[in-house]
């Protein structure tokens, strides 16, 4: 009933208006009949009836639901007000949206990547053991031999353990042969991880036969299911040929299940003491057992194992640690620090945004104190006024909030695209986090309301007469000015800190870009070649295959040189302790080894500094010859010539028995040549001393092959495929990649940091500049009258400009100082791994100061010039 009346209140009003008209007509007619004149009659009738509008309002109010009516009125009034000052509205809305959007987006990424990356059951209760070398803490062993794992499993501290052994097998059959990631997991793995399959079943303990042999079954990842079977349910029961053995598909895991692979599958790892391979074990603790107690048990076990197999453990002693699985993700380290810092950065952005909104609201409410006084003078109640101001702030904040949500979604998407996949666990999913969205929206909205209301509270009990008289004639030295100045200083300081971050990441990125990798990255195509261990089961077969590949690829037109390698293509490789003949041995020193073919240096474009290259004959005959890099050459005392010197390599003494190796290997090799340095440990790390040996020492199943030739390396791919097929039609090619792309991966994380820090840094600068601009514009507007007087008394335009710039310049200088001091203080706490350069980098610092000064000057100049151009007469008349 009430609602119906509410909806029909307009009609009621018209009805009553007509009725009142009728009354007047009647009364006038009566009055005329009494003999009054027409004018008298009308006046008397009106007098009798009273205030017409008031009556209608009375009735209208009866029909309306009070608060809704006024709310609607206020909302409309607020919208009208916001439309009338589009500059204020735009800036306030943008500030709110940026603050809410950026904070939410980055936190969403942090949440998805760092806080909750895994779909596994209780991931925070999974622990991973690792063995740390006491002397050389960088040396960490986080695997166990299967035999060792079986002992670990028996420790009383653990409720459950599982082991994983990532393998790549050759998939043959219907499609082209490919390398297929098939992860060996112990039979209890799926119970341990606690994820159910979407189709079929997962591996169960019964998949290990009583005789210890594993059933040939495979559980597919969602990716493999899609790629190999188009996600058809009839994949169950189909056979996959892996390394020439058939595996039956028994189940498919959900997309987010990415245990060591998102593209392959999982097969059973039998627990066999004779298995010499290494597996990564993870454990869950028994209830009531502390990680500390478990570490002690593990350490005791490791000490015993080290007694039995000393060569598997660090000689100089070790400690055992348990790391929580959430801390050992692929996102730990660099990505973790980047994301944490970004989170801090957007926190600053949110603060700047809030300061901006506060500033704008303050300026606006102060400007409206006259309007408020007028409204109170004509009878508006204080509560009613407050409600109206509150509504206005709410409307602004809500619209800003909605924009913020949209922006949060957009930035989250952008970050998801930008984030380097290799640094994020493949299980991680990045989605907009609703709690943070609520939080940052609440913060910004609250700020808007607080600062919209505070001055309203003050101005709603003003001395009316004063405020009315005062109308816009105050000079800019009221109480609000101090708050506003403080806010501007805070904004500038915060944006200086943000800009420092941006500036440092840019510097770091540019430095990395200018690093000389030591090889010529263009024109080189690289790919993996992995042979089936079954079909190539002898040393001779595998070496013959490699030599055939080298010969066949060398005949491709346009190819200048071909090389094979294990290690050094372009980074990393096995390491070995060594001793140089005639020098005392130092245990902690290691050489990086590259197993190469002849032409390695030529293919990668590494200059030969002295001596000669390894000849093809030396490679074929596995002669004990070697190349070293310039860093390794420095291991010899100055003046001594390393060429012709002999080096003993410990690793050649005790090659693992399961490896196929050359019939006779000498652990002592003679240096025949010195090649230029390459950044062989990644672009960001210094060059390690390296030594290159004939690849024929070992016949591994996997090799990397590199070709130097065409300017468009990928164009060689078809010819390469053809030649390889000519040698063995079942041989797959690994992912082809150019050397330039490999180098590009090295700069992915710095690029990500640079992109985001710069984006947020400039956003912060823009917001701060707008803050300066709006505050100054407002001050100029407030002081128009004063400026008029000054000019009338003889101040020139230059004086006015100077006055204004001086005022703004002070704020900027203080802000800049505070900001720089703050960022230098922060730099102490922040590892330079995010930035690649120290936090005190002078170039970065100078860049920030210049940029901020320029932006601040622009922001000050426009309103100051407006003040200087004032016509004194109109300024004095300005009300």
């Amino acid at each position: 009933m009430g609602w119906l009346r509410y909806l029909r209140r307009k009609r009621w009003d018209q009805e009553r208006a007509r009725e009142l008209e009728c009354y007047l007509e009647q009364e006038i007619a009566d009055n005329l009949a009494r003999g009054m004149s027409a004018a008298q009659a009308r006046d008397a009738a009106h007098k009798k009836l009273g205030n017409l509008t008031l009556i209608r309002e009375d009735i209208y109010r009866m029909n309306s639901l009070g608060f809704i009516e006024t709310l609607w009125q206020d909302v409309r009034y607020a919208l009208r007000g916001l439309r009338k000052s589009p500059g204020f509205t735009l800036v306030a809305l943008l500030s709110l949206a940026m603050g809410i959007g950026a904070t939410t987006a980055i936190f969403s990424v942090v949440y998805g990547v760092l806080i909750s990356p895994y779909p596994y059951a209780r991931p925070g209760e999974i622990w991973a053991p690792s063995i740390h070398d006491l002397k050389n803490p960088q040396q960490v062993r986080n695997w166990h031999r299967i035999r060792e794992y079986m002992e670990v499993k028996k420790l009383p501290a653990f409720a459950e353990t599982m082991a994983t052994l990532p393998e790549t097998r050759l998939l043959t059959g219907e499609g082209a042969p490919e390398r297929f990631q098939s992860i060996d997991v112990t039979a209890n793995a799926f119970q341990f991880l606690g994820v159910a399959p979407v189709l079929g079943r997962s591996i169960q303990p019964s998949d290990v036969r009583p005789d210890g042999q594993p059933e040939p079954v495979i559980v597919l990842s969602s990716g493999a299911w899609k790629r190999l079977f188009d996600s058809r349910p009839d994949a169950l029961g189909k056979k996959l040929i892996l390394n020439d053995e058939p595996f039956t598909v028994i189940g498919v895991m959900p997309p987010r299940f990415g245990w060591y692979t998102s593209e392959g599958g999982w097969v059973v790892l039998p627990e066999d003491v004779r298995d010499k391979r290494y597996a990564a074990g993870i454990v869950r603790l028994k209830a009531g057992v502390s990680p500390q107690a478990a570490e002690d048990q593990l350490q005791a076990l490791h000490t015993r194992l080290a007694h039995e197999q000393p060569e598997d453990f660090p000689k100089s002693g070790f400690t055992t640690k348990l790391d929580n699985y959430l801390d050992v993700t692929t996102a730990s380290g660099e990505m973790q620090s980047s994301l944490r810092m970004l989170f801090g950065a957007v926190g600053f952005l949110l603060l700047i945004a809030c300061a901006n909104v506060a500033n704008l609201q303050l300026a606006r409410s102060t400007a409206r104190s006259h309007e408020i006084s007028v409204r109170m003078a004509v009878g508006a109640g204080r509560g009613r006024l407050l409600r109206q101001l509150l509504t206005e702030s709410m409307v602004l904040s809500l619209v800003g909030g909605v924009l913020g949500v949209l922006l949060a979604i957009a930035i989250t998407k952008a970050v998801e695209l930008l984030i380097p996949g290799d640094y994020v666990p493949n299980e991680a999913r990045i989605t907009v986090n609703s709690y943070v969205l609520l939080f940052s929206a609440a913060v910004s909205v609250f700020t808007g309301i607080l600062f919209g209301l505070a001055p309203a509270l003050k101005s709603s009990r003003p001395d009316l007469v004063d405020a009315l008289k005062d109308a816009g004639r105050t000079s800019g030295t009221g109480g609000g000015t101090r708050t506003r100045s403080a806010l501007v200083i805070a904004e500038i300081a915060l944006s200086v800190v943000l800009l420092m971050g941006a500036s440092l990441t840019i510097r770091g990125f540019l430095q990395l870009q200018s690093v000389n990798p030591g090889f010529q990255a263009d024109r080189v195509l690289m790919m993996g070649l992995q042979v089936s261990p079954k079909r190539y089961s002898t040393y001779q077969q595998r070496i013959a295959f490699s030599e055939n590949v080298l010969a066949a690829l060398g005949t491709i037109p346009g190819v200048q040189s071909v090389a094979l390698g294990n290690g050094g293509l372009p980074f990393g490789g096995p390491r070995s302790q060594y001793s140089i003949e005639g020098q005392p041995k130092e245990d902690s020193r290691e050489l990086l080894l590259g197993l190469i073919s002849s032409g390695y240096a030529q293919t990668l474009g590494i200059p030969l500094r002295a001596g000669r290259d390894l000849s093809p004959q030396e490679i074929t005959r596995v002669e004990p010859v070697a190349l070293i890099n310039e860093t390794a050459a420095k291991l010899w005392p100055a003046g001594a010539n390393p060429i012709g010197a002999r080096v003993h390599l410990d690793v050649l003494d005790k090659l693992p028995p399961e490896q196929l190796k050359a019939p006779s290997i000498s652990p002592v090799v003679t240096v025949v040549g010195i090649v230029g340095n390459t950044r062989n440990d990644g672009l960001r790390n210094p060059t390690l001393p390296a030594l290159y040996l004939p690849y024929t020492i070992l016949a591994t199943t996997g090799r990397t092959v590199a070709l130097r030739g065409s300017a468009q390396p990928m164009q060689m791919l078809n010819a390469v495929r053809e030649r390889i097929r000519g040698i063995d039609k079942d041989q797959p090619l690994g992912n082809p990649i150019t050397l330039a792309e490999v180098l590009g991966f090295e700069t992915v994380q710095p690029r990500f940091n640079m992109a985001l820090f710069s984006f947020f840094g400039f956003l912060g600068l823009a917001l701060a500049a707008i803050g300066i601009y709006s505050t100054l514009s407002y001050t100029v507007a407030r002081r128009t009258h004063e400026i008029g007087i000054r000019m009338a008394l003889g101040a020139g335009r230059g004086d006015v400009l100077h006055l204004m710039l001086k005022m703004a310049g002070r704020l900027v200088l203080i802000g800049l100082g505070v900001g720089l001091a703050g960022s230098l203080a922060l730099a102490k706490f922040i590892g330079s791994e995010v930035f690649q350069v120290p936090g005190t980098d002078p170039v970065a610092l100078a860049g920030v100061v210049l940029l901020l000064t320029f932006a601040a000057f622009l922001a000050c100049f426009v309103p100051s010039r407006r003040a200087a151009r004032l016509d004194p007469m109109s300024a004095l008349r300005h009300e």
Partner: protein
Amino acid sequence: MLQGTLDLLILQTLVPGPAHGHTIAHVIEHRSEDVLQVEHGSLYPALHRLETRGWIASFWGTSENNRKARYYRLTALGRKQLEAQTSNWDRLVQAVNRVLRPAGE
């Protein structure tokens, strides 16, 4: 005027038959021999209130001198209200009288 008495007077005025606002105002004025001065305007919110309560109903009609006017009539509910309020009123008046002029004076 006492709160609620205007409602009572309006309802009473409508007992003989429908009337429009102008008539009601004047009737109340005359009946009370001009003691009860109603600002005629305040009559209309009261009429509106009574109508929304369903005590009176309205319709557009033609007045004595051939003008359009909105007429009000008493509804059944209004009649009941009038009786209840009248007896209330009588009780109130008696009570007040007893206080002002105690018996035996």
